[in-house]
């Protein structure tokens, strides 16, 4: 088998060819217009745009569409490629949502490891005071890269959960637009390559990229802007696809309030992604234009009389947070959905207050649009805005509380068992509780004026993101692993992973918050020993390594169990959900016959009830 028969390899070749062609084109254009040949901003931007297109052409993510423009029909191909080993379909364009879901999930996991390693690098530097091996510039680059790589990993991980599960859970053949689905996955790959290349040049503003700082630094910024713009495009296309799929392709009898609860969470998430992502795309595009074309959107420029004829730095913060606050709910809503999905199975009991849980996701999503200014209490905007954003932010606590109490109601009176997925679900609740409860103290503006930009905030958002995404993601991986591979993971290793990671994380969160209240600022390469936070910082670093180690155990477990794990059977968890009523691993065409919904999704303990009926041989 030739290496170039892998789409990924062809895509990477296309990327670098495109890069060279694009850079050359910009140079030639510049010369033609009588400018100097080299301007690194313009040349790189031109090159990178062309590189991303080159990747997509190389991998073949647009082949069918291009053929359509020439009137050639392209029927959907099913199954692994005919002339190559079956595994190769994961490394090229494939339209099956289960393949795409795995591609998303594995890429997400890969990025989680990469982003995590960046953190370990700078955590080692922070373990004691004094600069030891990372110079401040490198420190800032690692810190900034950690954030965006980790955020990309979350977005891809969510894509994995959504793409793999939504069609299965609603008994659909595939997503509404399979080609768009593949395209939305594949544009992430050149974006990630671009993001990683930015490291060679460096950039130092943190993920928030506030101007004027982000207008000044090295050309690495341009790569970040373009990469995030492209990943954002993926979010928009992917969420569009999911919304259409859920609204149009549900089976007979599945009203919205009879969808599996995870679908509600994904629906709310997708609404946010579809409507808010343009804001960060726009904001980063404006930064890019300001750098390469000198359009003054954000940086003040003064004329001879001292009048500002340039831009306004705070405007950027509004645009940025108008996406980035709702985005934090993108990160957590699917995970909260996983929690709500798994608890009834392991409690053998209906989900408490299904409608309230479903609607609380929507409520969080909607209120989430009105609170962005809580990231700007100290920014210097009009003082009355602090009051407005304080109140709207506090309101988010209400639907969040509904979720917690409903989870407790689900546990109460159940017959609880504790295999690894359940442990991670409970761990997620405990960690998200720490994160959620540290939110209102940041929302009341007075306390935030102290806590803003300290390690307290670092503790807050790591706890929300781990509790709302990482723990539930791991729970989901362990839970659906037997459905995906047909085999069981190793339970002992799973429990070991849990018992290392969970206490490790509690310790890390609390230590970060302690450091913050003691006056430790965030995003600093070194700190004053007089602050007295050295021991606390050491604890954070140790806990970080424990967490990282435990994740390696999981990855080992996932790889080895795929071959030596015991056969799991179709429904090891005795779930009522549709995907567990079909064989494991799921066949190419998931459902041989259309399904119909005949009951409530979570009626565990109601004798004789069932959620779905598979169409019998005679009645289709």
């Amino acid at each position: 088998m030739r290496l170039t028969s892998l789409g990924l390899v062809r895509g990477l070749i296309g990327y670098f060819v495109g890069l060279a062609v694009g850079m050359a084109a910009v140079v030639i254009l510049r010369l033609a217009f009588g400018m100097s040949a080299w301007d690194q901003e313009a040349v790189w931007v031109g090159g990178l745009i062309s590189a991303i297109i080159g990747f997509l052409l190389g991998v073949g993510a647009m082949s069918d569409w291009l053929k359509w423009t020439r009137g050639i029909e392209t029927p959907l191909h099913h199954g692994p490629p005919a002339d190559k080993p079956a595994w190769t379909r994961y490394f090229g364009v494939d339209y099956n949502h289960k393949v795409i879901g795995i591609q998303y999930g594995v890429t997400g996991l890969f990025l989680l490891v990469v982003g995590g390693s960046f953190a370990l690098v700078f955590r080692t530097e922070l373990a004691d005071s004094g600069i030891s091996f990372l110079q401040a510039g490198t420190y800032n680059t690692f810190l900034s890269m950690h954030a965006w790589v980790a955020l990309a990993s979350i977005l891809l991980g969510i894509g994995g959960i959504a793409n793999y599960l939504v069609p299965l859970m609603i008994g659909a053949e595939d997503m509404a637009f399979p080609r768009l689905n593949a395209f939305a996955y594949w544009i992430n790959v050149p974006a990630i390559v671009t993001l990683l290349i930015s490291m060679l040049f460096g950039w130092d503003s943190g993920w928030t990229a506030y101007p004027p700082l982000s207008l000044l630094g090295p050309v690495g910024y341009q790569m970040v802007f373009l990469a995030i713009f492209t990943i954002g495009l993926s979010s928009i296309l992917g969420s569009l696809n999911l919304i259409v799929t859920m609204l149009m392709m549900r089976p007979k009898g599945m009203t919205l309030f009879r969808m599996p609860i995870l679908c509600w969470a994904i629906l709310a998430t997708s609404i946010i992604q579809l409507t808010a992502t343009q804001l960060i795309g726009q904001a980063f595009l404006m930064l890019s234009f300001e750098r390469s074309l000198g359009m003054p959107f954000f940086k003040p420029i003064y004329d001879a009389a001292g009048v500002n004829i340039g831009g306004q730095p705070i405007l950027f913060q509004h645009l940025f947070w108008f996406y980035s606050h709702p985005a934090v709910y993108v990160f957590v809503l699917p995970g909260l959905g996983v929690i709500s999905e798994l608890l009834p199975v392991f409690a053998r009991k209906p989900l408490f207050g299904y409608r309230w849980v479903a609607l609380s996701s929507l409520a969080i999503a909607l209120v989430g649009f009105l609170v962005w200014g809580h990231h700007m209490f100290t920014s210097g905007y009009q003082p009355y805005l602090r009051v407005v954003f304080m109140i709207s932010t506090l309101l988010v606590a209400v639907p969040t509380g509904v979720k917690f109490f409903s989870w407790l109601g689900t546990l109460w009176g159940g017959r609880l068992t504790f295999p690894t997925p359940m442990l991670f679900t409970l761990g997620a609740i405990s960690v998200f509780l720490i994160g959620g409860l540290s939110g209102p103290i940041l929302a009341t503006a007075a306390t935030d004026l102290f806590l803003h930009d300290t390690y307290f905030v670092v503790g807050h958002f790591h706890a929300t993101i781990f509790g709302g995404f990482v723990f539930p993601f791991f729970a989901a991986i362990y839970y659906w692993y037997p459905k995906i591979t047909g085999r069981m993971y190793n339970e002992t290793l799973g429990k070991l992973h849990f018992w290392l990671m969970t206490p490790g994380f509690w310790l890390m969160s609390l230590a970060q918050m302690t450091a913050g209240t003691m006056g430790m600022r965030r995003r600093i390469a070194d700190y004053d020993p007089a602050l007295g936070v050295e021991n606390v910082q050491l604890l954070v670093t140790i806990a970080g390594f424990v967490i990282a180690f435990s994740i390696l155990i999981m990855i080992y477990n996932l790889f080895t169990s795929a071959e030596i794990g015991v056969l799991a059977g179709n429904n090891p968890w005795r779930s009522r959900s549709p995907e567990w009523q079909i064989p494991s691993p799921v066949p190419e065409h998931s459902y041989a016959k259309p399904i119909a919904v005949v009951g409530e999704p979570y009626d565990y303990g109601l004798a004789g009830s069932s959620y779905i009926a598979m169409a019998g041989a005679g009645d289709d």
Partner: protein
Amino acid sequence: MLKLPQSYADRKHFLIVGALVVIGTIVLGFFLLAILPIKAQASVQAEPIRWLFQLHIWLIAFLFSLVVVFMLYALLVFRRRKHDDSEGEHFEGNTALEVIWTVVPLVLVVIFSFIGVQTLRGATSGGDEVQVKAEGFQWSWAFSYPNGVTSAEMVLPVNKPALITLQSRDVIHSFWVAEWGPKQDLVPGMTTSLHITPTEIGEFQLACAELCGLSHWSMTAKIRVVPEAEYTAWMEEMLAAQNTQTASR
């Protein structure tokens, strides 16, 4: 050994859990106050911040205990016993409960909004008996007083309301003295300000709290809060030094 009922609706469960939540709240509250020693204490504006922070801690202690005690209790009491293959009790929800745990938090939100506005006013207002301008630039600070005195350290008299005006020469920075409480960004193109009435004599560190590039971590300056007489003396000394400097030029 206490014998626990297995039915989910038994009153006994709720009595035990209630007692444990009370104990949990108290223990956790003191624990959190110990491990979250908020540093804001050396100015009038720090007072409401500190007070509200500690109020939050008690609310957090209560809510955390509420959820965790219920959860741990359920895990213990409602775990599946050996050879028990039955399903859980079938109840799908309870609208009254849902309404209660929507409305009670809503009331808390209203209360905290009210308190939030009051404390915000306290943390951001004050007089301007002393005025000083702080300029931030990559990666240092410069201070100047209305009488023309410029200095690399900031000196303020204790217990006198000060108005600190803030300007940046390049990128966004943030003015923060942890002991004083609030911080405020310096934004190029505009002037922002901060009211501080220092209540403790001593040396403090001003640190930039907004990532501003390479040496952000070391963008600090010395702040000295001194008795008023000492402040006047320092000011005269500075004025005299500056005058001789200008004269000799």
